[in-house]
């Protein structure tokens, strides 16, 4: 990039020191006087009707203020999915229901003067249940005689297929060309079934919310959310409380990964504050986060590909079935995304059929999770390509390079699949997939290791595998980001953005964009983000949208500011605007060799002559969603005696356009990759026969520590995305797609075992090895 001051530099994250010294505040760190505490009673049954709740004994306990349940809270159908409006998720949820749909479903809430009293009182609530037959498997749930999970009046707010009477939470279907013809043209057909499993986002900060009335009587909600503006809207609608009287503040957020794109605690806290006129605090325990927040949707995928001996794919059929659990949060869009992110990758395929369905079951609720269906889809696709290329004895890397979508090319899928509606037509403006593959392969030493089955000591064999993918950058024509800026008398600027920094560093990135446009140092930009009273709107932190969408809004806004200050400078210097250049916090007339500093301009506009506030605002709705591309490589070692897998090295080579802040971009990839690696190997939800989650602690649900880490290498392969701010695309999600298939493919490379069903435990590999012996 040419002559940039701030962009492309690894600037320190502007909130990092306050976080590293512990002074930055997360939700639970805010002091409120004399708050009410909340404990929830959860259903012990996977499927049941509540016949009666007797809360009399509990209410008598000293310190108990109230108990909420279906008998005393209005049943207003809504979705907890924090998406654009109307949400493409079914309205199948009420705050407190009479029907219980999984172990962990919310029965009642005890409100008390302290947490201990609330916890004790929960045990005193008597509930009479009528136990119903549960269904746990997504295929069984769609069978004719399956128990119906949503037999009330749930509905879909947008016109798409929704059949709760068949446990069908969503369905999407597209097709191009002629499948029959495509299959006939093929020399052989490969049809395989794959499945992925449950997982917890496991953000280290649990879901937290505080609500209170401020001194003016407005309802303030401080919450650990990715979607503050959606929180305001959903709370207003569910409680039928004026939106204008609600202020949502997003403080520092302790990780999200999609798990905090859900609005399921804020309405309860707000309801209690409104009812009892007291501050309210809800902080979930780790057990509650595992059981009763949101999860990654498990998915079953059947891939059927017709292939010529040349390697050309003549037909491509994908059947994806998502288990959405008890409620349909993101049920349509995630299964749709499995197709929309995966199908365009090999865009030369002419004959395509995709059907995606989501089934309700009596298990924990799915939701948005980094990767959002693409992770599940690419797990299947990468193994399918590994199978095809091995059968044809082709080099998989050369194969991917030959057939992937390229700059200037398009795919019909972009137009066909959007967020519950049609998508948009787009051509690819930037794609460095080949370079990602080449540099990644070099780093992992692919050609010296692939198919070599290098042994290291007795019974230990090594192998390498690849996981390629593409994602998107925001949701075109739906996502919206906005920014406003004003100039201060010392030449500094306040930058107000709705965009939601949940630890990603978006406050820093957006400040870098503004600083670059104005030719000033980063410390002259004072960022305030995500306060619904103070900042403009933004849909929030999801769909890999912040840099591309909100970043463009900031760039537009800063350009408007620049126009204003150039005009002022022209007056001050008595110059023609044409002769002015902006750099180093001043504006210079090159013909006169005279300049004014930003501080002089700021002071002039506020105090001297023709005073006005230099200020601007801008919004941006993307027309496109340019995909970033990634090639990820795993080297694994399998112990043939025990089935134990060790990841030796993991390489990610990513094209995210211009990395506006390379260190932060690397951090996104590294974090996503490690999340993906432990998802592949150690993370899973284990259920009892009656559907109860049995591993709801960090002791039993293993996420990796530094001691488990393989050698990690991240390579940023720059491209210039002309539609993005300073050439940027997204980077937040894509890194989680590769580990699952790369490790599966590497295990095959090492020991010839094909693992269609994740996660890849030692037990699974041990038993497969013994079967194949």
């Amino acid at each position, binding site marked *: 990039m040419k002559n940039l001051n701030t962009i492309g530099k690894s600037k320190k994250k502007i*909130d990092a020191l306050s976080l*590293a*010294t512990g002074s930055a505040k997360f939700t639970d*760190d805010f002091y409120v006087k004399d708050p009410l505490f909340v404990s929830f009673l959860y259903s012990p049954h996977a499927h049941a009707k509540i016949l009666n709740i007797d809360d009399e004994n509990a209410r008598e306990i000293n310190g108990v203020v109230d108990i909420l349940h279906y008998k005393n809270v209005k049943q207003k159908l809504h979705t907890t999915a924090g998406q654009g409006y109307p949400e493409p998720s079914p309205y199948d949820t009420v705050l407190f229901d009479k029907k219980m749909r999984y172990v962990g479903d919310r029965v009642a809430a005890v409100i008390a003067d302290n947490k201990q009293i609330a916890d004790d009182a929960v045990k005193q609530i008597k509930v009479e249940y009528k136990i119903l037959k549960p269904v746990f498997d997504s295929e069984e749930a769609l069978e004719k005689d399956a128990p119906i999970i949503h037999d009330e009046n749930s509905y879909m707010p947008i016109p798409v297929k929704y059949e709760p009477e068949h446990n069908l939470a969503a369905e999407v279907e597209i097709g191009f060309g002629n499948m029959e013809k495509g299959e006939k043209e093929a020399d052989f057909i490969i049809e395989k079934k794959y499945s992925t499993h449950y997982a917890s986002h496991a953000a280290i900060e649990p879901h937290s919310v505080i609500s209170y009335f401020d001194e003016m009587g407005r309802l303030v909600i401080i919450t650990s959310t990715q979607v503050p503006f959606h929180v305001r809207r959903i709370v207003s609608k569910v409680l039928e409380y004026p939106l204008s009287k609600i202020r949502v503040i997003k403080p*520092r957020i*302790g990780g999200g990964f999609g798990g905090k794109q859900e609005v399921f605690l804020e309405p309860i806290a707000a309801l209690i504050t409104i009812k009892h006129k007291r501050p309210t605090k809800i902080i979930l325990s780790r057990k509650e986060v595992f059981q009763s927040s949101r999860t990654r949707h498990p998915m079953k995928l059947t891939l059927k590909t017709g292939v010529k001996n040349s390697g050309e794919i003549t037909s491509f059929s994908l059947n994806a079935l998502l288990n959405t659990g008890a409620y349909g949060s993101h049920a349509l869009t995630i299964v749709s995304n499995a197709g929309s992110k995966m199908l365009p990758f090999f865009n030369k395929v002419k004959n395509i059929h995709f059907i995606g369905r989501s089934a309700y079951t009596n298990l924990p609720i799915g939701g948005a999770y980094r990767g959002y269906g693409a992770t599940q889809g690419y797990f299947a696709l990468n193994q399918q390509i590994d199978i095809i290329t091995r059968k044809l004895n082709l080099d998989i890397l050369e194969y991917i390079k030959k057939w992937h979508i390229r700059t200037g090319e398009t795919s019909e899928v972009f137009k066909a699949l959007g967020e519950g509606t049609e998508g948009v037509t787009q051509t690819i403006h930037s794609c460095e997939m080949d370079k990602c593959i080449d540099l990644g392969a070099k780093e992992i030493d692919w050609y010296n290791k692939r198919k070599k089955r290098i042994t290291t000591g007795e019974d230990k064999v090594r192998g390498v595998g690849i996981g390629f993918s593409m994602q998107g950058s925001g949701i075109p024509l739906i996502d919206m980001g906005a920014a406003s800026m004003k100039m201060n008398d010392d030449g500094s600027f306040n930058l107000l953005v709705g965009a939601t920094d949940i630890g990603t560093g978006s406050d820093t990135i957006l400040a870098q964009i503004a600083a670059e446009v104005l030719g000033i140092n980063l410390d002259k930009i004072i960022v305030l983000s995500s306060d619904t009273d103070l900042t403009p709107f933004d849909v929030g932190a999801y769909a890999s949208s912040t840099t591309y969408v909100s970043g463009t809004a900031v760039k537009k806004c800063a350009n408007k500011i620049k126009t204003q200050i150039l005009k002022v400078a022209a007056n001050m210097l008595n110059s023609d605007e044409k002769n002015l250049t902006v750099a180093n916090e001043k504006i210079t007339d090159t013909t006169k060799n005279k300049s004014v500093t930003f501080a002089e301009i700021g002071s002039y506009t506020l105090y001297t002559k023709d005073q006005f506030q230099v200020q601007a605002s801008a919004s941006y709705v993307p027309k496109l969603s340019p995909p970033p591309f990634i090639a990820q490589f795993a080297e694994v070692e399998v112990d043939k005696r025990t089935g134990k897998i060790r990841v030796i090295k993991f390489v990610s080579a990513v094209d995210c356009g211009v990395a506006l802040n390379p260190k932060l971009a690397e951090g996104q990839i590294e*974090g996503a990759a490690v999340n993906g690696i432990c998802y592949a190997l150690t993370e899973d939800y284990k259920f009892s026969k009656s559907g109860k989650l049995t591993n709801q*602690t960090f*002791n039993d649900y293993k996420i990796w520590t*530094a001691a488990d880490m393989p050698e990690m290498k991240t390579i940023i392969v720059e491209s210039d995305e002309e539609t993005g701010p300073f050439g940027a695309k997204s980077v937040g999600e894509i890194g989680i797609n590769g580990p699952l298939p790369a490790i599966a493919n590497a295990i095959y490379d090492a020991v010839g075992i094909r693992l269609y069903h994740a996660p890849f435990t030692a037990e699974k590999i041990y038993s497969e090895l013994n079967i194949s012996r």
Partner: protein
Amino acid sequence: MEGTFIINGKEKTLNFNADERLVITLRNNGYTEVKNGCSEGECGACMILLDEKPVHSCQIFTASVQNKNIKTVKGIGDLHLPHIIQNAFVEAGAVQCGFCTPGFIVATYALLNENPNPTEEEIKQAIDGNLCRCTGYVKIIDAIKNAAKSIQKERASL
């Protein structure tokens, strides 16, 4: 109950319940830099130094540590006078959401006090009691290596 503690070098008298865990007592008394991520001794967000040893404060009864020396991340360095380790985390890009960071800083401080020149393996073992979901640990390990170097350099120049 009432008890006296030395917190970040200052003697403090605090009220607490008999069965209260230290993380709760500290947070209730304004030491919100001590985070609570799991209450089960696994995530390490609540890590503090107890007589200079790193411990999960959610696993300690407040009543059992009266008159002892407690140091939180703010006692290591604050916004106005940050410690080398804190600066190293900032520089390396080791802070993403930052919820786990105070615990990592405490673990690093304890490590480098005992072992100013740790190997990568020793670093990994020293932070094995701390979970981070954002960074993938790569930049945290970089930060600790850089902090060790800076501390050695500083000592050499004294």
